């Protein structure tokens, strides 16, 4: 410590003594403001928020009970008013159930499967990516070969084969999708680990004798979080499409629980007479996925434009 106290060193000391938390919060605010400035990402965020709120508050916003059948009101076109004076904004299906209500409740399945599957594959991929990237060598080779094997299968075919064997249920589709989607997370995390591994503070920690676990947790992991988050967001959109594809084939959550894919399958039968059965659920999927994609793209551009995702 220099005995001469110049104004500069006083200033430095003052900064060092300031608490760390406000600057962290300011960092998040900065990122958020950067994100908001991109209109498309903002639009995406708004859509995602609307879908999430719809799913959470479904019982309160739904105009009808999604399971309530009324054969006398079957296949009514959008805007139809039933004898009690209530309007079916998007029409009714072949069992007289209100389409809008079923779409609102269908968002619950979509989001639950999306979040759960992403959580499973995200954690799995994170662990595999960290292990492969950090320990390298034969373990890395083996894990990357495993990734290649996973990717060789047309995913939907593998999913329906496995669910065909295990039986369709909410739990099974979450597990199947979750367990087989880990590769993209693992690759991104591994890439990040490989670059972080060479950085000086990590090498310093190794030289100082820190154990692997500590290095991974304190230095490597926090750096992988950002790319992981971008991947998770974009992957969620993909999972929602897969869930509706499985429901479309009859291998998803079973009726009468409303799912967007299931509604599309029903609608296909009545395509020539009642186009609204198939059109609106598909639009719901399209808008949701578009919103998530735009939000994910915005997230990636804000946090790390160099990401090749």
């Amino acid at each position, binding site marked *: 410590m220099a005995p001469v106290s110049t104004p500069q060193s006083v200033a430095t000391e003052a900064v060092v003594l300031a608490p760390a938390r406000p600057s962290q919060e300011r960092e998040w605010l900065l990122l958020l403001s950067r994100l908001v400035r991109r209109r498309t990402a903002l639009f995406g965020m708004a859509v995602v928020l609307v879908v999430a709120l719809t799913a959470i508050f479904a019982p309160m916003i739904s105009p009808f009970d999604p399971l309530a059948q009324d054969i006398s009101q079957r296949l009514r076109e959008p805007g139809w008013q039933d004898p009690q004076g209530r309007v079916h904004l998007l029409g009714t299906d072949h069992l007289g159930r209100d389409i809008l209500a079923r779409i609102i409740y269908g968002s619950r399945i979509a989001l639950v499967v999306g979040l759960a599957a992403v959580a499973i594959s995200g954690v799995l991929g994170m662990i595999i990516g960290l292990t492969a990237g950090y320990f390298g060598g034969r373990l890395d080779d083996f894990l990357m070969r495993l990734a290649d094997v996973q990717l060789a299968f047309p995913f939907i075919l593998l999913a329906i084969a496995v669910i065909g064997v295990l039986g369709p249920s909410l739990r099974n589709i979450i597990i199947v999708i979750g367990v087989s989607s880990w590769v993209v997370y693992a690759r991104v995390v591994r890439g990040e680990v490989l670059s972080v591994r060479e950085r000086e503070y990590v090498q310093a920690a190794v030289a100082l004798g820190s154990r692997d676990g500590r290095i991974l947790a304190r230095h490597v992991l926090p750096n992988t979080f950002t790319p992981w988050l971008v991947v998770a967001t974009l992957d969620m959109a993909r999972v929602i499409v897969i869930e509706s594809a499985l429901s479309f084939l009859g291998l998803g959550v079973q009726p009468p629980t409303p799912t967007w894919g299931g509604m*599309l399958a029903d609608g296909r039968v009545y395509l020539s007479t009642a186009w609204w059965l198939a059109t609106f659920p598909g639009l719901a999927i399209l808008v949701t996925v578009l919103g998530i994609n735009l939000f994910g793209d915005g997230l990636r551009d804000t946090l790390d434009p160099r990401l090749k995702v």
Partner: protein
Amino acid sequence: MKWYLLRRGWQSLLVLFGVSVVVFLILHLTGDPALLLLPPDASADDIARFREAMGFNDPVAVQYVRFLKGALRGDFGESLRHGEPAMHLVLERLPATFELAGAGLLIALCLAIPAGIISAVRRNTSVDYVSTVLALLGQAMPTFWLGIMLILVFSVRLNWLPSSGRGDLDHLVLPAVTLGLFTTARITRLTRSGMLEVLGQDYIRTARAKGVSEPPVVWKHALKNASIPIVTIVGIELGTLLGGSVITETIFAWPGVGRLSVQAIFNRDYPVVQAAVFLLASTFVIVNFVVDVLYTYLDPRIRFR
């Protein structure tokens, strides 16, 4: 370069090996394949005898070796529903699926590459915006919904095109467009970003400074370099196309491997399922290996690794 190819070849073989293990395990997921393959009203005696006859009582490793030996000969057992050898059924329908996937890929490349290039060259103009919006929509749209909507518009309302079956070119249009849209969107975005990255490079500035006119700059210098990630993506997209064919073939009643697989799964015809999954996955691995070989010709930097 030879080492690189040998290494990639060996890796591909390992992957194929892994694929065979997974395909084998599908049947054993619930622990008792006999229960899967027999009708639900089979007696306990029948089940026990079946298990013995099919060799399900042997250790798993022994069963796997038996499976692998059969697979290498192309023998996946007999279809439970049709009585014919499973692999024959699959191979019969392979041309149909290739036709669909090929048409989809062709549409995708013909639309996406020019669109991507124009977007990059005329960046931030209305052409770019329109093409970007369309690409975003294309990536967000579920294929099965697109297929149904196309049928609604072009078959039901306008009666221009047939909605199912395979026959002449008419029958190919709607399924191919449906299958190819997602790939089109993806390749458009990739071409655009690839071209933008390449157009910003020094050697492009040099070419322009030298006085080379714009068309050769774009088509000769830029495109050749931007095509490297595109070639890689085509290999991966083939996997998407083969997988997407499952849904598209179901919607359009296209007699391909995808539709056969879905029917087989619902019919619990597991030998066919195994044969189909194994064939599609192997095709993917082989195509990617071919793409890697092509890669070494396109990107001279690889040869010197």
